[in-house]
């Protein structure tokens, strides 16, 4: 694989896709080597949206550094905050109240649904269907309104704080979520009918961007992209955090390894998230929404690691503390970066038009890759 990077023979065409290209969903710069229309090599160039979030975190306190992670993977910002809060709680050894745990998981799943909805619309738009994009955004708006009412913001919620959540649920929360469940249950069948069964869509996805199980593991691909190749890697199942261990949901596995398998995994995950929300919405326990914590948090000296399943894969937070009020070092293992590393392998030998479909099923969020 490595010897081919940058080598061009006569007749090859080197073109740049991005950094400003609508199909890359952000400032991703790909240098493609093409032979006719066949892809010989894909080289991602990163760094256009690097904000040094890891370095910034070293000068922020344990309450402050959580909010910055909303700016990494902005579509699953709540889950990112969750990962950081789990790490801090691990260091402080705080027991999070049952109510806060349920609220966190509910919000996680709502965020995952919103993220998958946006992915579904954008994915269909990438392969040429514009209408699903508007349909997806219409239902996503309902989730955004629920978020705005309870958390105070639509995208970068910053609802989690060490020890629980910042503010209790809004009185309308349960009613609004139930309304959303009934709405979305009818709409998801419409999605299925409109896009999954469409023959043009299937022809563009089936057999494209094959990734074998072995390759998925060796590239460190995680999340729905890896589960499309049959790798069981759902952190919610394998290493349950919060109340995920007691919930009844399935880990979706497909063995195709192509774009359509990855599409199906994400699509079926939407139904699973919906089922988790249904299980929890009537069973929110009473009690505190926040554990009592000190005003200034100090983690004991040591290293702490926690991981969660975001909408895109496994997010790991590795934190070293020297005993002070700020972290000594923070490292994020972001799902987007590892998933992008497999892009070259997946798209070799396919046509230029297929690259857009492959990138779509990887569900890349560029600020997550660059941090």
């Amino acid at each position: 694989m490595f010897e081919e990077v940058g080598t061009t023979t006569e007749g090859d065409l080197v073109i740049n896709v991005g950094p400003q290209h609508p199909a890359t969903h952000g400032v991703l710069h790909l240098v493609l080597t093409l032979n006719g229309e066949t892809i010989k090599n894909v080289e991602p160039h990163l760094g256009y949206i690097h904000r040094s979030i890891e370095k910034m975190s070293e000068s922020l306190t344990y309450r402050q550094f959580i909010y910055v992670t909303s700016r990494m993977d902005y579509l699953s910002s709540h889950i990112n905050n969750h990962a950081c809060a789990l790490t801090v709680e691990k260091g402080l050894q705080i027991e999070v109240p049952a109510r806060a745990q349920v609220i966190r998981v509910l919000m996680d799943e709502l965020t995952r649904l919103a993220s998958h909805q946006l992915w579904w619309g954008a994915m269909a738009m990438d392969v040429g269907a514009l209408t699903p994009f508007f349909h997806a955004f219409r239902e996503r708006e309902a989730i955004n309104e629920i978020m705005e009412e309870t958390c105070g913001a639509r995208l970068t919620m910053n609802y989690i704080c060490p020890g629980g959540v910042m503010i209790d649920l809004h009185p309308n929360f349960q009613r609004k979520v139930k309304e959303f469940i009934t709405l979305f249950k009818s709409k998801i069948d419409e999605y299925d009918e409109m896009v999954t069964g469409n023959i043009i869509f299937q022809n563009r996805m089936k057999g494209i961007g094959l990734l074998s199980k072995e390759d998925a593991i060796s590239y460190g691909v995680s999340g729905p992209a890896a589960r499309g190749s049959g790798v069981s890697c759902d952190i919610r199942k394998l290493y349950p955090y919060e109340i995920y261990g007691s919930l009844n949901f399935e880990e979706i596995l497909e063995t195709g390894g192509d774009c359509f398998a990855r599409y199906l995994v994400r699509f079926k995950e939407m139904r699973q998230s919906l089922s988790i929300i249904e299980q929890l919405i009537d069973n929110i326990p009473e009690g505190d929404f926040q554990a009592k914590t000190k005003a200034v948090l100090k983690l004991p000296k040591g290293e702490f690691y926690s991981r969660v399943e975001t909408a895109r894969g496994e997010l790991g937070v590795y934190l070293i503390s020297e005993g002070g009020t700020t972290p000594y070092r923070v490292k994020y293992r972001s799902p987007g970066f590892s998933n992008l590393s497999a892009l070259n392998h997946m798209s070799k030998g396919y046509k230029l038009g297929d690259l857009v479909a492959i990138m779509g099923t990887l569900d890349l969020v560029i600020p997550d890759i660059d941090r």
Partner: protein
Amino acid sequence: MFIVDYIKEVYGAVKSLLTGMNRTGYYFTHHKEIITQEYPDNKDTLVLSERFRGEVVMKHDENNEHACTGCTACELACPNATIKIITKFDVTPEGKKKKAIDTFVYHLELCTMCNLCVEACPTGAITMAQTFEHSVTDRSKLIKKLNQPGSKIREGVE
């Protein structure tokens, strides 16, 4: 066999097309399901959630009194150095010196509406307002003084 596959494909394409057109027809005849709101026109009916985080404001009551003691908890909690509190010493009628805020400077251009300052405030003096149209023609207009002129701390707030 090629012919059979070909006919199957054509049948599938026509079926997919009709499924799509069915949805189009449904929304064409059901206008009530269209939820688009056109923003500047709906300004009178636009209701934002009471928790919506638009900007930080200081609560003043009818006597032009606030609850800010100038403890700088919000200043320390802010990750972006958005808040700067300038304190002064008031002389009470008994002749004692008492710390009070002179100016509560709020840099809206630096604020990310993360709510950490409101969480940190021990007296509940600041809160988030629902305003969201913050565009101005000059950057200096974004630097705001939150305490109203002539305001003083409410009796009994320590």
